[in-house]
């Protein structure tokens, strides 16, 4: 598996990304930047790059991170490790990705619980191959930010 047509984010999506719009305009948030890392095809590199992303976040002294993983399947190996590495470094997190109704995560851990939001909108269980159907929406992003704020407050107390 990987990034199907319904989940793929076009160049236009990046030009007007709802996640960035929402977080950058929130006056209770000091947005430090956007970290991008690629999902490799080797397991060892997946672990390396996702760990390095978490180390960046810790080095930036982030209180929290919203992590988005495009697509599903093997990409969730990197995603799960990033969730673990961020949490172990004291960075609160909310996650967004396509999970869908076709099964569970291919891999999970103790750091992926009520903090992960499924952005899948399809009613069926197979990839619908329709551009834009399972993209991030403003509502998905609002949910993620709400969860993140709760988690950051818990970490503080």
């Amino acid at each position, binding site marked *: 598996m990987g990034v199907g047509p319904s989940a793929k984010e076009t160049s236009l999506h990046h030009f007007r990304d709802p996640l960035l719009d929402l977080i950058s305009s929130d006056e209770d948030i000091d947005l430090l930047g956007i970290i991008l890392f*690629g999902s490799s095809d080797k397991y060892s590199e997946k672990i390396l790059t996702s760990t390095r992303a978490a180390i960046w976040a810790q080095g930036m002294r982030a209180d929290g991170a919203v992590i988005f993983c495009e697509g599903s399947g093997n990409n969730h190996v990197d995603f799960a490790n990033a969730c673990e590495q961020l949490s172990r470094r004291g960075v609160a997190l909310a996650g967004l990705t396509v999970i869908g109704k076709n099964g569970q995560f291919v891999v999970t851990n103790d750091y992926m619980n009520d903090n992960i939001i499924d952005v899948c909108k399809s009613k069926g269980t197979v990839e619908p191959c329709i551009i834009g159907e399972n993209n991030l929406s403003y509502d998905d992003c609002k949910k993620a930010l709400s969860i993140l704020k709760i988690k950051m407050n818990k970490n503080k107390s």
Partner: protein
Amino acid sequence: MADIDLGRLVIRAFDIKSVSWGDEMKVTPQGEMIISKSMLPDLVSSMDTIEAVDIRLIQPDEHDQWTNTILDIIPISTKALGVVGEGITHTLTGVCAMITAVDTEGKQCHEFGSSEGNLKEKIIFDNPGTPSSTDVIISFDVTLKAGMGQERKGPYQAHLLCDRFLQVYREQMKNFDGKLCSARNEFHNISRPGKKRVVIIREVAGQGAMYDMQLFPHEPSGVEGGRSIIDMGNMPILVTPNEYRDGILHSMQ
């Protein structure tokens, strides 16, 4: 503590009111765009994985038609001042580019599923990443040489061909009189000391053909001058909010 402004980006939008065929490639700040296929033969001959390309203008009431699998939807933007992420960007609204690709043997260029079929059923219009239902779509229908849809170079050259075509319009857009824009948006990278420090992390595609991400192009949402995240070892890269919203990423998945 007071907020700190770390940088400003201005995006001026020019609304395109008509897109039509003509003998020249021309766009005006008043909203007229003329498309010509005249440079396509030279573009095709400069790309060794591409057999042919056709352009279709898809008006808002013409969505009921066949499309090959959709590689990308691209805003048409250029830097009028500064580099991506700062200065002034000119962008067109009411029109966008779309790339589709298939090879000479009929194999669609895709990774995990393909979106060929009736266009009106293959796009959810009016999403952040999809055309507005009132947009004119400039569709680049690329025919790759046999098997090239599954090699990194094939889809890359399809994107590059489209980018080079659009650059002709971008060069004209750079000189648009800013006072004629139909909308002006100003974005600031704001630091809010004392507030919760948050980072956005995005895991993007990085495994090969149709599973790639191009970063740091010369033009917003462009290809030329960029580099692939695969070639950078998929290692984490930091970009500013204004770099991101100005199109420092070009989707290749």
